[in-house]
């Protein structure tokens, strides 16, 4: 439950960071969170980032998003909806790699 709440908190932070800052807020917040909370596993940052971007996408007008996702996926030769998976995966990987990279710093 605590992990879930932590992931939720991360998602909110990353969502706000992305809204007011941009994509770079995702690795920045993931790294900062990891430094502040070294016990937090890096995958939790990934989960929070994907959830944040998924939530932000869900706030868009959904029909145009569906149409756009279908067209974009085809542009990049991905299966239908593939571009959404890529977007969420990209956020998750950014967050995980940033968090995982700073983890030893805190240990030192």
């Amino acid at each position, binding site marked *: 439950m605590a992990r879930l709440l932590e992931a939720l908190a991360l998602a909110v932070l990353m969502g706000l960071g992305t809204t007011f800052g941009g994509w770079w807020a995702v690795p920045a917040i993931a790294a900062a969170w990891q430094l502040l909370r070294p016990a937090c596993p890096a995958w939790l940052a990934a989960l929070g980032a994907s959830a944040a971007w998924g939530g932000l996408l869900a706030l*868009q007008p959904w029909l145009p998003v569906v149409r756009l996702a279908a067209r974009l996926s085809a542009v990049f030769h991905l299966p239908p909806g593939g571009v959404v998976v890529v977007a969420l995966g990209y956020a998750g990987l950014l967050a995980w790699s940033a968090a995982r990279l700073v983890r030893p710093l805190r240990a030192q």
Partner: protein
Amino acid sequence: MTGGRRVTTLAGLLLSLLLSASVWRVGPLPRLGGFLDPVHGVWTVARQAELPDRAAATIPGLGAGVTVHYDHRAVPHLFAASELDAIRALGYVVARDRLLQLELQWRAGAGRLTELLGPGLLDTDREIRRLGLPDAAESRLRSLPPDSPSRRLLVAFADGVNARIRELGPGDIPLEYLLLDRRPAPWEPVNSLHLLGRMGWTLAYNRLEELQQRARARIGPAAADALYPVHSPIQEPLVPNGQSAPRYDMAPLPPPQGGDSGPAGPPDFAAPPTAARGDNPRFFDALGSNNWAVAPGRTAAGHALLAGDQHLELNLPSIWYEVHLVVADSLDVYGVTIPGAVGIIIGFNRDVAWTFTNTEADVLDRYSEVVDDSVHPRQYRVDGVWHALRLEEQRYLDPAGRALLVDTLRFTHRGPLTEAGTGRWLSTRWTALESATQLTAFSRAARARTAQGWLDSMANYQVPAQNMLVADRAGTIAIRSTGRFPLRPVVRGDLVQRGDTSAADWLGDWPPGALPQSLNPVQGYLASANQEPIDPRVNPRYLGANWYSPWRAIRINQLLRADSLVTPDAMRRYQTDPGSPAADVFVPAFFRAARRFPARDSLQVAVRLLAQWDRRYTRDNTRAVLYEEAIRQMQRLLWDELSAAGGSQALDTPGLAVVTELLQDPSNPWWDNGGTRDVFEDRDVILAQALVAAYTTVVHDHGAPDAGGWRWEKVRQANILHMLHIPALSALGIPVQGGQSTLNPSSGLGGFGPSWRMVVELGPEIRAWGVYPGGQSGNPASSRYVDRIRAWSNGELDTLFVPGTVAAAQARARSELDLTPAR
């Protein structure tokens, strides 16, 4: 290295990769960070996809506020206080919906596509610049005084477009710009003239002279004159000639020089392999247009009716944008504009409706020039005197502003000079390069109250020449081939002329009174479909050559002669009529040929299948494919003398009307296959071989005749490509009714076809219907991107909503936009 350290290293590498791909472009991919960002990235395209309930914007130069009401079909109705304000607002709303299209079209006309799309477009840009089109547009703008009505229209439109571009935030950039990682360029007034130049290139440019020259060298002048005749062998002119049926002016065709003359012998019926198919719109008769008007005396309701459909390259977004411009007490015009044009091109007001087909006249000549240096000429000689060429350096840039190429353009007094190989230099004189701007003609015509008034407004229109059809509420119908048609000192204008003498230069233009025209003809209707406009027995003066075969004109005339109570719905049905007059000529010829060879099993199978065809290109038809392929095979076998090594078509394929002449002459040497030295193939042999080859090819490509693969909708489909040719943003495989030479023509690869179908009834209140294959929005995420394609494919028309007042527009508005002057 411990496991933890390895994971950390891996994470570092991954983060470096992700950050690099976020900050820099990798190959064709956009910068991923900004692109995938759900708030600021590509997903913003979804937020812009639908029109908001209300919006507001400011436009510099606006004299007063303009209200815009978008109806249920996303058509903007603009209510302005002056025409210039209406044009400013037009620039804004077009940019709001079609920004990329605006930029692509002006860049295409300016020869500057490489600056947006990269070096892959260099050849395209070079061709346009070498033709002198951008140069002509620039000098045309320079010739306009600052306070001239035309320049004010251009500037007003630019004000509107730039107001939209300036207000674009990071979340308002159209999808394609995000994919390309570019930003829209500001709009210059000259861009509208670049667009007009581009339209001139599409509709009034041809390489006929070059093709003719090559054909004459190959087959001799007499044969070339017959294959590419000045006058159509089938006469169904747009100016009625008093005949109640098409006239076939059949004449024997002189043989090609050097043709083989072997003795008659047993024909070979081995089917050839499937040949490659192309998308030659001229061959398929798909780059052209139809229009017709019916006088009140032949309509069910007693009101004049007008219909038109322009056959052009099909693109997404569509070439057309539908709009309604209203200026109190002076302008109330509805129709379609081309994004970038400063007004409505085709449409109607409260009293008059109009539509165009392309005249296909010869308005371009080439001259073989004598130059001082075959590699780098600086002078050319006329009447024994050397003249300096005007030289202009051209720089082609890539998107980063780096020079891709520096080129020198050369101009004679006639026009641009280009090398035609082996030190031969040709100059081009073309009306599109030297005609005055005609922007105000459309503006005046939009206010006309009668058909005659409309024609008077268009009297000075020059390029590209159009068959302008007009009807009014008083019941007048009229047509005129309007444009600048040169008078030449030679009989044929489609041959390369001598450049070293001024005696070869144009003598002037056709006087307006001599233009092909008709007003309220006795027959009660008018029809045009790119056929030769006037019967040469009425006026033999050279207007052009190698006209489109008049099958579509014949079909319209058939339908209208048979219907004396025409309704708007009949007009709609005629636009997608599946009948083919060409098939009525050629199918019996195939039957006749098959009867000569009763023992040939494959031929008899093929002809039995062809006999099952009702000569209609309906979607569910399962025999049209055999006929279509048989015609293609016949053309291939018949015109072998025009083929290059390897079988590709080196010269222009003569139209089917010329083949009709040959059908009357079974042993004409043209029928003979030059590849079989010991055998003389006559007409029936070639037709029989073509039918067998067609059967073999169709079975190979589409399976057994009744297995489902022969259905026309599976064979011929419209493919509406996105302007950047991105398949995922295109609409592909759209079933259509119609084929070669039908009123709803479709080309081999489906890239050409009817681009705007309109029917107008000019009763006490004007009623109108229309459709184009696309949608008002250029945003691929919008519900208005392709929403009209289904109706277009089904041959249906939308009822056009034409509110008379602001209140009426407001009452049914789905979205409103307030445009106010910028402070």
